[in-house]
């Protein structure tokens, strides 16, 4: 799974439009997400960036009014083709949410391994190896290694979010989606998450939605600027922030609106 990644495109999005009823939330977006890199999606509230993100793992389908047009390919596989079930796509693409959501009735351990156990992996040795591996990658191992059976909700907010990251990583996804992962956290926890992202990108393709431009500038390699459902500009982060091609982009990144 992680071997699929060389510096070609992990995700190719062509003419993606997402509708909720009559409302077109994402309008005809095309871009390529590079493998083993961090791509940030920025833009003002309501610009469609979260909707775009959720289209990548077909989570928008949880809304009965949702409809999409266009094409998204994950390492060459059309994730919307007729014989592909959303369930399968979501095993290849992991997601971390804005507000941490560990399962409260499960321990730390159980939360990390839930995805694996769903996939039928019962071997205790494999499970505990993956647990340690994922928790290390999420920079949480040292803090919890002595209390893996403690309830997940006994952790602090920042720790819970890292636990959710570990939970997503445990199933070894090809792409990791993060929807404003640090917006509910304090600055210290936020910087831990950002360091984490920089470490993870060596092995994972990451797409992160953020309304925090400094965060985008610090942590990402590529940035896409969305406005009112449209992709206004997309390119290497340094270019977007220092010499954007589009006036609107420039207005946003310099804080003139948003």
């Amino acid at each position, binding site marked *: *799974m992680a071997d699929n990644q060389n510096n070609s495109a992990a995700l190719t999005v062509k003419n993606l439009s997402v509708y909720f009823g009559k409302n077109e939330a994402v309008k005809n977006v095309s871009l390529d997400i590079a493998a083993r890199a961090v791509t940030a999606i920025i833009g003002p509230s309501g610009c469609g960036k979260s909707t775009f993100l959720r289209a990548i793992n077909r989570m928008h389908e949880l809304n009965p009014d949702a409809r999409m047009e266009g094409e998204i390919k994950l390492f060459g596989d059309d994730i919307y083709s007729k014989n592909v*079930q959303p*369930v*399968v796509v979501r*095993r*290849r693409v992991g997601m971390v949410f804005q507000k941490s959501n560990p399962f409260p009735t499960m321990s730390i351990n159980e939360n990390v391994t839930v995805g694996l156990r*769903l*996939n*039928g992996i019962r071997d205790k040795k494999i499970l505990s190896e993956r647990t340690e591996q994922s928790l290390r990658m999420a920079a949480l191992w040292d803090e919890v290694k002595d209390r893996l059976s403690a309830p997940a909700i006994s952790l602090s907010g920042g720790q819970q979010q890292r636990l959710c990251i570990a939970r997503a990583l445990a199933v070894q996804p090809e792409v990791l989606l993060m929807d404003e992962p640090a917006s509910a956290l304090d600055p210290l926890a936020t910087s831990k998450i950002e360091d984490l992202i920089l470490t993870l990108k060596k092995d994972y393709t990451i797409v992160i939605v953020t309304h925090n431009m400094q965060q985008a500038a610090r942590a990402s390699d590529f940035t896409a600027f969305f406005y009112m459902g449209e992709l206004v500009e997309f390119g290497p982060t340094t270019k977007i922030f220092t010499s954007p091609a589009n006036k609107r982009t420039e207005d946003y990144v310099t804080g003139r609106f948003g």
Partner: protein
Amino acid sequence: MTAPNHNWRQFKDVLMRVITFACAILVVTPLVLVFYHLLKEGFTSINWAFFTQLPKPVGEIGGGMANAIAGTFILLGEAALIGVPIGVLGGVYLSEYGGSKLNWWIRFAADILNGVPSITWGIVVYGLLVAPHLPGFSALAGGVVLGLMMIPLVMRTTEEVLQLVPAGYREASLALGIAKWRTIVQIVIRTALKGIVTGVLLALARVAGETAPLMFTAFGNLGWARKLTEPIAALPLQIFEYAKSPYDDWRRQAWAGALVLLLLVLAINIGVRFLTRDRFKAKI
């Protein structure tokens, strides 16, 4: 790249959908069956005689449940006289006044009352109104017990409905210098009136079907009750008497009575649902 147990998981998903669907159908089945049998056995017995005649003595064929039907309406009227003012005004207090501690206890007490078995209500009102004034079985006692049972129900539904009225309405009225009590009566209650009426109707439908409390208060009557201090017939009571009797003709009439009672109760329930259909749309 699908996990090895993918097909098994899909199978389980479908299986559980089927099982839970089957349970949902199972749940609905008794309603359908009851309705079907009531119609089948009772429909043909519903005729003019049924609604206008009194029960005939044991052994004679024919007669009707005119007194029981009238009795039920009389009892419901009495119950409303007691249950509505106390229940609605009590609900107003809970919603519009009161410290949170006291209100918590009032709500708790109301919830307890809602859990009191109906037969307990029956023997309590028997002890209070019937026993001391023997032979005290009376329409009065029957109306009282049903009315008392309505109070906690109406109180809670009124409170809920009043709470739905936006705070802004009250504030606007008070800011105009209108007295609080007028605000509550003319603005808040006015706005919530439909909901309050709904709650009252549902409570009435609930007590209309009660038999146990009436057994020891209204007691039943094979004729007309000429005064409120006499025993009175009621549909559920009559149905019960006929249902456990060995006489075929009485049992035939019990089906008819049950059909009429069920239609009355369902009509109120469905009618209320229809009236509040906008409220229900959002609640999936």
